[in-house]
């Protein structure tokens, strides 16, 4: 009964999303106020229906209803309650429902957040979001309905993919999807501006909080995924340039470009059509990412959701959505010229180069991502593109970008130049170079040429971010939240760069075979294999080793790396033991039984690796801090006062 209720709710949600799209787009276009007003109830109704469907699927998981195919395939009565809930998004159909649910949440938030904006504009935003809902609801109902029943029901389920049975990964999809779907809101704002044929600074100010929030969630989602990969995949890596990782990284790069371009549009009324294009491309890359992951055209670590037939639907949806947006763009964008000017050394120029470099990096990854597919399509043979391609080509655009960051933060608008900040920045650079070289050559050993350079850049970015807040504090001027947010986010970037450099340049790693009592040395630490014992989990067994870690004869820590065998899926996963010691991460992963009491281990000492994720989280925190700036709230209420009854702007022309 409950699954049927969920199915019914989904169908109603589809009908409501059609109404939402129709009223939202046709109402303002034809100047029918009652149609326009009907959008809000449609949004609310859709939210209730989608939440009901989500609740029904969750109930089926919690209640172990193995007559539902999706539950039977992705859960098991031995699965702990937490993972039965996370199981909802453990595979394809459910993660689509999660996508739809988050879209409904964002749409509701957008309906509330745009309530103070001009009514026609708000309706158009919700209308565009409605068209996205239609696509995803149709997709779910036609190709991947999670409520399909089994007859007869199974006695027990097949269980959840063991790699998903981890708190980090259980949280990863919802957070990442919140970011993906958030880009849909930025896209909808762009769509509404295109439909209206009007784009001004107000628009940029309305859009910024949404774009920044989506970006912050995307940042957190990618960080969670990377952290999870580090401690479960058993090899202590944190980024693999895996096709699915790239699929989430490309929208992030576009989103980063978008939030910087929006800053210029809000401040100077410039880069209007470029900002719109970025909003369209950012969301398109989310859709392309979804398509690439779901369609099975990619060979990836993450392809557990591959299902070739479903790809065609997304591809069609993708072509319609992106095609319509780009056509509208080609028609409207030329009308959105601005007459503002700026010099080569102005902040506008630096932000323009920021965008060029970010988009180049994104395009490079896209080329690497598509090359294997193109190569097969053109009968040029199978091709692999991995880290040896992505690492150097990514640096080609990222190193110049890092050099430009301090200038971009301090250059003056319009007329350009650094003013009195020039001297401060030079001092900061000298200090950063000292710190960078001291760390690269003093603290660590064996630095190449790249390590001191990028350490210096990281330190310079941090110091440069601090100049403005310190200046304001000294002069007792208030620091607006937007400035504080920018400062924090750029400090996060600096921390990230330094950590990344340390990890790339100074990791000590080796695989060893040990018998009980034997020890090995790695990165200045001694690892002694004490014992191994069997492991008993709720739905897994396995082995756990005990490793005594010491340094210069003094005990540092005791580590328990595990190897788990999940009964239901017959799958082995590695749970590395990780210890954080003086800024370094010590990682021990348990390998296999080599016979005669010998076991293999991976020992790894990675300096500062923790700060890669901390840096990324600081960036996200900076974004969230920036959107609490007063002007985003003030601006809206002033708008309501000024707006009054609005004429139906341009009857669709």
């Amino acid at each position, binding site marked *: 009964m409950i699954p049927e209720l969920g199915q019914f709710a989904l169908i109603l949600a589809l009908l409501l999303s059609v109404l939402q799209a129709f009223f939202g787009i046709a109402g303002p276009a034809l100047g029918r106020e009652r149609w326009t007003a009907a959008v809000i109830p449609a949004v609310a109704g859709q939210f209730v229906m989608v939440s009901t469907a989500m609740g029904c699927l969750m109930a089926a998981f919690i209640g172990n209803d193995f007559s539902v195919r999706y539950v039977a395939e992705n859960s098991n009565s031995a699965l702990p309650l937490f993972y039965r809930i996370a199981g909802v998004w453990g595979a394809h159909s459910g993660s689509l429902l999660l996508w739809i649910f988050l879209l409904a949440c964002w749409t509701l938030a957008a309906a509330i957040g745009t309530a103070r904006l001009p009514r026609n504009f708000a309706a158009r935003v919700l209308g565009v979001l409605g068209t996205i809902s239609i696509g995803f609801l149709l997709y779910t109902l036609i190709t991947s309905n999670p409520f399909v029943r089994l007859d007869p029901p199974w006695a027990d389920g097949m269980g959840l993919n*063991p*790699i998903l049975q981890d708190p980090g990964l259980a949280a990863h999809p919802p957070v990442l999807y919140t970011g993906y779907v958030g880009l849909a809101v930025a896209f909808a704002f762009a769509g509404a501006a295109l439909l209206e044929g009007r784009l001004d600074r107000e628009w940029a100010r309305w859009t910024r909080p949404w774009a920044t929030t989506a970006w912050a969630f995307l940042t957190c989602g990618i960080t969670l995924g990377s952290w999870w990969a580090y401690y479960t*995949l058993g*090899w202590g890596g944190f980024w*693999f340039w895996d096709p699915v990782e790239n699929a989430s990284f490309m929208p992030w790069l576009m989103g980063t470009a978008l939030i910087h371009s929006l800053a210029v549009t809000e*401040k*100077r009324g410039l880069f209007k059509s470029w900002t719109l294009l970025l909003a369209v491309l950012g969301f398109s890359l989310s859709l392309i990412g979804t398509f690439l992951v779901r369609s099975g055209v990619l*060979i990836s670590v993450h392809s557990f959701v591959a299902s070739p037939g479903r790809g065609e639907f997304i591809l069609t949806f993708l072509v319609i959505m992106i095609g319509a947006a780009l056509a509208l763009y080609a028609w409207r964008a030329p009308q959105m010229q601005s007459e*503002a*000017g*700026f*010099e080569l050394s102005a902040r*506008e120029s630096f932000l323009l*180069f920021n965008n*060029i*470099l970010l988009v*180049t990096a994104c*395009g*490079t990854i896209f*080329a690497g991502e598509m*090359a294997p597919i193109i190569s097969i399509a053109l009968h*040029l*043979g*199978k*091709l*692999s593109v*991995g880290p*040896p*391609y992505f690492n150097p080509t990514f640096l*080609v*655009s990222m190193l110049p970008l890092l050099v430009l960051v301090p200038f971009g933060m301090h250059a*003056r608008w*319009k*007329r350009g*130049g650094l003013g*009195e*900040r020039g001297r401060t920045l030079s001092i900061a650079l000298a200090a950063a170079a000292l710190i960078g070289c001291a760390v690269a050559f003093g603290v660590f050993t064996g630095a190449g040429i790249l390590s001191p350079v990028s350490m210096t850049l990281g330190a310079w970015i941090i110091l440069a971010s601090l100049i403005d807040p310190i200046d304001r504090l000294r002069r007792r001027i208030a620091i607006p939240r937007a400035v504080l947010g920018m400062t924090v986010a750029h400090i996060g970037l600096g921390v990230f760069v330094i950590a990344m450099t340390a990890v790339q340049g100074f990791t000590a790693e080796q*695989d*060893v*075979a040990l018998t009980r009592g034997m020890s090995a040395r790695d990165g200045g630490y001694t690892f002694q294999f004490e014992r191994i014992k069997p*492991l*008993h989990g709720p739905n897994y*067994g*396995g*082995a756990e080793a005990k490793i005594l870690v010491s340094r210069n004869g003094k005990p540092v820590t005791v580590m328990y790396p595990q*190897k788990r*065998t999940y*009964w239901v899926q*017959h*799958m*082995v*996963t*590695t749970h590395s033991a990780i210890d954080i010691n003086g800024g370094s991460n010590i990682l021990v*992963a*348990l*390998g296999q*039984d080599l016979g005669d009491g010998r076991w*293999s*281990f*991976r020992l790894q000492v990675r300096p500062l690796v923790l700060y890669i994720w901390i840096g990324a989280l600081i960036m996200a925190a900076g974004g969230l801090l920036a959107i609490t700036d007063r002007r985003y709230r003030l601006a809206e209420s002033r708008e309501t006062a000024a707006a009054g009854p609005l004429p139906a702007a341009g009857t669709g022309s």
Partner: protein
Amino acid sequence: MSRRAPLGALMLTLLALLAAPFAHAIAPTRMPTAALEARYERLIHNFRCMQCQDESLANSPVSLAADMRRQIRQMLLAGDTDQQIRHFFVARYGYFILFKPPFVLKTAWLWLAPGVLLAIGTVSALWVIRRRAALVAGDDEDEFLDDGLTGPRKHP
């Protein structure tokens, strides 16, 4: 609980034999010299496993990968150059085995893409800036631009 222990051990042994994509190979080897060890590490990281989804030979748990690692070790010990080892594997498995696509006619576009994109971007940016710089004189927006954030201090 103890009832499960032998079963656990059995399963573990069984599963060690099966190719499970998420258990990575942790394969201790020692080459006679540090230079050979470094070359070995680099090679096994830059070849892909032919049976896994997106794994290097270094991390692949399947037996084919173990054989290939052994082959690389032997070739290194026999004095083959990296080039020769690459040729050996490409001849058998095609370019697919290389994580680093070769620079040949078919793949040149991939290697040129970053540079071309960057060049196009830079040229268009400079073009935009040149056009905008000409507009500075006619643009009278000035007053609120530097909100104490940078540059000349204004007195209210």
